[in-house]
């Protein structure tokens, strides 16, 4: 059974159908791309999957159960996590606290434990700390653990955001334009990095991206969206030669 199954998803803002008849299937440990011109509705799809918007039509099945109608944090508890197009870190918190906050989704103690510092408090804090250290090391941020998130260089902020999302232990990770604002060299490194995450954490990734080279290079399957509707889906090769996609991106030949 597929990890994520989206059927006939649609949302309407007033009279505007922002997304209509969207469908998608993601299996275990797959890397899928979602592309389309500006305003095609890609981020809207993300927002519907993660409960930010409530879809007006359709159904989302994730990990065997329906997640339509759940709030954002409930979706995260079901092992789906995301990053944002414009980085949204907790700017005034340290790098390690940024990640640690996500750990509490999986391991928590009661307020009583926190106030009386019971054994459970120490045990959970210890486990969270270990998890944070592990992620910091993997992402090469261990010597920046005590810096405030806002003081990190741009590339590190992007990586921290991914690390923070991974700390919620997702089975599906949604990346919203991770290469935005990166130069070609950084984008190339990012491609390797995303593939590495997929294999290392054994998770599925859904990637929204403008950068064609990145998407074509690493995605196994690609869905193309234009004006809220799917215009093509298939392997990178099929997409590259699809006349409708070429038209959507660069226009028609006269």
């Amino acid at each position, binding site marked *: 059974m597929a990890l994520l199954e989206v059927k006939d998803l649609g949302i309407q803002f007033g009279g505007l159908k922002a997304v209509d008849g969207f469908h998608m299937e993601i299996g275990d440990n797959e890397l899928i791309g979602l592309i389309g011109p500006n305003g095609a509705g890609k981020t809207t799809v993300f927002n519907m999957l993660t409960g930010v918007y409530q879809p007006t039509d359709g159904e989302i099945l994730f990990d065997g159960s329906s997640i339509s109608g759940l709030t954002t944090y409930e979706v995260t508890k079901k092992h789906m996590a995301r990053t944002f197009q414009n980085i949204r870190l907790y700017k005034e918190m340290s790098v390690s606290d940024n990640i640690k*906050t996500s750990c*509490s989704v999986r391991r928590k103690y009661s307020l009583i434990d926190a106030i009386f510092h019971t054994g459970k408090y120490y045990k*959970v804090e210890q486990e969270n700390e270990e998890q944070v250290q592990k992620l910091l090391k993997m992402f090469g941020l261990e010597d920046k653990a005590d810096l405030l998130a806002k003081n990190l260089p741009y590339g590190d902020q992007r990586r921290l955001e991914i690390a923070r999302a991974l700390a919620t232990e997702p089975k599906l990770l949604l990346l919203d334009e991770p290469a935005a604002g990166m130069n070609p060299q950084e984008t190339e490194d990012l491609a390797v990095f995303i593939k590495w995450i997929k294999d290392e954490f054994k998770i599925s990734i859904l990637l929204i991206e403008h950068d064609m080279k990145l998407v074509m290079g690493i995605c196994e399957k690609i869905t193309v969206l234009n004006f809220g509707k799917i215009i093509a889906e298939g392997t990178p090769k099929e997409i590259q030669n699809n006349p409708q996609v070429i038209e959507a991106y660069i226009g028609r030949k006269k």
Partner: protein
Amino acid sequence: MQKNMKKGIIKIVIVVLVFILAKFLIREGIIGAYTERIIITVGINIILALSLNLIIGYTGQLALGHAAFMAVGAYVSAIFTTKLNLPFVPAIILGAVAGGAAGFLIGWPILRLKGDYLAICTLGFGEIVKVLIQNIEYVGAARGFSGIKLFTTFGWIFLFTVLAYILIKRVVNSVYGRDMRAVSQDEIAAEAMGVNAFRAKLLGFIIGCAMAAFAGGLYAHYLMFIDPVSFDFNKSTEILTFVVLGGIGSTSGSVAGAVILTVLPEALRGFGDFIKTYRMLIYSIMIVILMIFRPQGIMGNRELSLQNLMKKGNTFNIKGGEKDGIA
């Protein structure tokens, strides 16, 4: 864990030693009744500043009616001790519960919204409480509530201030405190990372309100007389000043703010005639000057702790960033 135990024991020993020393000085008459009065006021103000800092500094919600929760605690506990003859400690605990309940009633509908709606709502609540008390004959209406027994001694204040500090420290250093800070900095991101933003904000608000009510109970049993006007908007502003001046989001800053702003006007009395006459003016000018040169407050959002003091200076600098404003 052993290291924590050792540090904990050292802290307990220090606190107990300070207490014994202070008690000794009071008994020997070195600390006079006047100074003792100031110390008790400082203690109450520290608890108030800590409680408001949890709401403003950690959950990022602006609350402008904190004195109203203090009033709830003061009146409820005073009713229990004077009219129902309950002992002091259970009475102020019940006062705190009432304050927490009032916080829940306001927070439940308001904190679901994203934005600074709480500021307006608590402002309104402050007025409502004042007018309500002014019209309840049972607690003396506008004339005030008199005949409250003196229970709040130096010993109780010392104990409760230390406990309040520990409580706040432990809440903010737990997953709950981290959730609150995450929500205050980016509510959308926090929700996407699995934090129930509404619950985090509500929890911080309720704890803050209950603690303010607790301080109100201490206040009532110290002054032995309370009236509605002493819990008006001016009082709320005074508490807000402690927090802002100490540094929003810094627990030790709140303590510093409360101590300095309580002691300063009293200390100015000790100087010559000129300063004595204009002491409130000087006090205000000092606040203005401090805000111009250190808009982030005395401590910024840093913390003062044994660890930070022992570490070399530069780590202390890296760790603490400056916070720009309330939002």
